[in-house]
């Protein structure tokens, strides 16, 4: 069974300092932030402090932060909320996304099309997964409700030019949403400089707890809530706030900002060591997604021709290393990833995918151990597949 964890894009352990920050809010300061009494007031103070911390680190106002239960929920609220609000207000009927979005965007767009009659169209991406900024304008329509392009792709690590996309959307007065769940775990977004109207975040990708996320909503961007009920979160998300997890998220996000550069300096050489090794030592291998500065600093993803990617992950697990084939698949379904297929990889390549993602505490020794067994493991996953 695995002892070395190399799947930080799936989730991360909670930072001890985050655990410590959350601790008081389970037993002592347990009040409901909506309550009038002291218990409620203390909880509300913690909630609003967390909102302030998150806002500060995004260059935003606390009024622009909505806490949710996860990145997927943030994506749902951004897409549905904006689509419905813009339909009501300006008769918008069109959603423009990239073809390599996270399922939380893709499946939500599919449902908005199938059940609510929205028209969904897709921006072209190149073989690395980059959205073509130059032609973006041609895809915008009078009735476009919003544009959604993920900041960093979870499977292939590609960083999209969200700054440029945001500018074009702004010129055309169309809301722009980005799923930054992977991106924000490593890189800074400043909404005072980047024209993004909605940003999805999830805490467990950056050493925060699972079960909490946030949506940045630029002032003036209208949303119709998805969860209705109480008036929490400015009336945009009914539900008693999960104070301990929200406190944990804020603490973890603050640590990303404080330690971001140190983490980058640690991760980049390790990432490049893996990429260089694989491309030079393993025959019939390719890097998927963006190169160098245009991919996540902790993210190395490959395809190996003729290998069974699921089996490779199982072989690596049996050898003591926890990786992923790109998108979680525990059922043994052999469908190639839709992202890789869309980038033009034929099935015999796309089925042999591997994603290795590093964490702030990953050591060079662990990477050396991993690289020592990787070629043989790929070999095994190829041989059994024959």
């Amino acid at each position, binding site marked *: *069974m695995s002892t070395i964890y190399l799947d930080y894009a799936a989730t991360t352990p909670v930072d001890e300092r985050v655990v410590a920050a959350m601790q008081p809010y389970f037993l002592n300061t347990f009040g409901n932030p909506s309550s009038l009494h002291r218990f409620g007031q203390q909880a509300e103070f913690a909630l609003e402090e967390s909102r302030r911390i998150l806002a500060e680190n995004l260059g935003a106002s606390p009024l622009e932060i909505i806490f949710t239960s996860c990145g997927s929920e943030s994506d749902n609220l951004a897409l549905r909320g904006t689509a419905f609000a813009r339909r009501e207000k300006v008769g918008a009927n069109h959603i423009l996304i990239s073809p390599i979005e996270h399922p939380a965007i893709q499946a939500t767009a599919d449902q908005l099309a199938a059940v609510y009659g929205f028209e969904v169209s897709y921006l072209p991406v190149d073989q690395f997964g980059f959205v073509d900024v130059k032609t973006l304008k041609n895809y915008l329509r009078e009735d476009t409700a919003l544009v959604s392009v993920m900041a960093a792709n979870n499977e292939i690590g590609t960083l999209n030019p969200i700054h440029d996309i945001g500018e074009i959307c702004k010129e055309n007065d169309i809301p722009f949403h980005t799923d930054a769940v992977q991106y924000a775990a490593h890189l800074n977004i400043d909404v005072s400089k980047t024209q993004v109207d909605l940003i999805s975040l999830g805490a467990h990708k950056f050493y925060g707890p699972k079960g909490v996320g946030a949506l940045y909503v630029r002032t003036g961007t209208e949303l119709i809530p998805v969860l209705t009920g109480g008036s929490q979160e400015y009336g945009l998300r009914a539900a008693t706030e999960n104070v301990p997890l929200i406190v944990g998220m804020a603490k973890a996000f603050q640590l990303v900002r404080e330690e971001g550069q140190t983490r980058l300096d640690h991760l980049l050489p390790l990432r490049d060591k893996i990429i260089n090794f694989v491309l030079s030592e393993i025959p019939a291998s390719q890097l998927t997604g963006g190169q160098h500065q245009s991919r996540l600093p902790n993210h190395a993803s490959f395809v190996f021709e003729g290998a069974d990617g699921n*089996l490779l992950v199982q072989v690596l*697990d*049996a*050898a003591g290393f926890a990786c992923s084939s790109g998108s979680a698949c525990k*059922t*043994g379904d*052999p469908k190639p990833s839709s992202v890789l297929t869309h980038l033009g990889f034929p099935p015999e390549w796309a089925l042999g995918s591997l994603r290795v993602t590093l964490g702030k505490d990953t050591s060079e020794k662990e990477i050396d151990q991993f690289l020592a067994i990787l070629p043989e493991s790929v070999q095994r996953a190829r*041989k*059994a597949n024959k």
Partner: protein
Amino acid sequence: MTLSKGTRIVVGMSGGVDSSVAAALLQDQGYEVTGVMLRLWSDPGTLNRCCAPDALVEARRVAGQLEIPFYTMDAQDAFYQAVVQPFINGYAKGITPNPCLQCNRMIRWQFLLSRAQALGAEIIATGHYAKIQQSADGVYQLLMNPDPEKDQSYFLHILTQENLSRTVFPLADYSKKEVRQLARDYSLPVAERPDSQDLCFVGQGDYRNFLKQTDPSLFKPGPIRDTEGNIKGKHTGLAAYTIGQRKGLGISGVEPYYVVEKDIQENTLVIGYKNFPGRDVFFTEQNNWISGTTPETPFKAGVKIRYKSRVVPATITPLPDNQAKINLSSRLPDITPGQAAVFYQDQICLGGGIIRLEES
């Protein structure tokens, strides 16, 4: 075969009581157990009963409780090629194929062994009711399970020395009753799960619906005649019948009729009474001899012509090209081409082959 403690063993798990107990027993004996569930092909729109979502959940629960790694592996294409396609082809040829034999040979052994090897395991285990032992000269032998109701050696006669050298059957000597008790003793959540059925891949209906949808040309109506040559009625297509079948003929006689032959050339179904004498000579092909050595001279052995039939004394005469001639000590009415004839000496399964009525 003696395995040292800590040997890595891959257990083929189905979420049922047998494979779950097999995994628990091996873990108890100190082996490093890894569970693997194979995802098999099923008739589109239906679930393969060997790996349906609830079975997967059960297998995961067992693995979780035993704290063993558990992986699902896709074998849908391999299963279709090795099991389903020959099943359809067999009916087209007028025989009654036994898909479990091909599944064991190609999927539960060849496929699983290759995957186990990739995971660093040289040995696999399953929840089959049969026993492996090594004779003094090092040859692996396959033995019946003492519980005649559960013995599965019939389905395992296709195994080779290489297969047996890399296989353990933890349920070797246990009866089903004992296995259920073991499951309770280990507090396994699957102790009371019902036994699985054969023909896992055809969904809820029977195999006829599956064949009808897959290849309607298999169902060409034709005459039914009795053993005297009298036309008695019409059949709906030979693929809908199997030898020994009584129900669904729709023809009355002085006593019930049984299917005694499928004449594919004439597209004719032949029926007869229960006292139809049947035959005492038939042939087998694609023989497998578990010892790895084809016998050179005729020898006496017991023969089972179906999984649930009794062992009948016979003389087996090996023929070239992995064939044999079988002379039974008494006639049997339901010798069915496509099923296996499996040979036994006492408890030892010697091997077997696929039944055909005439010499090729």
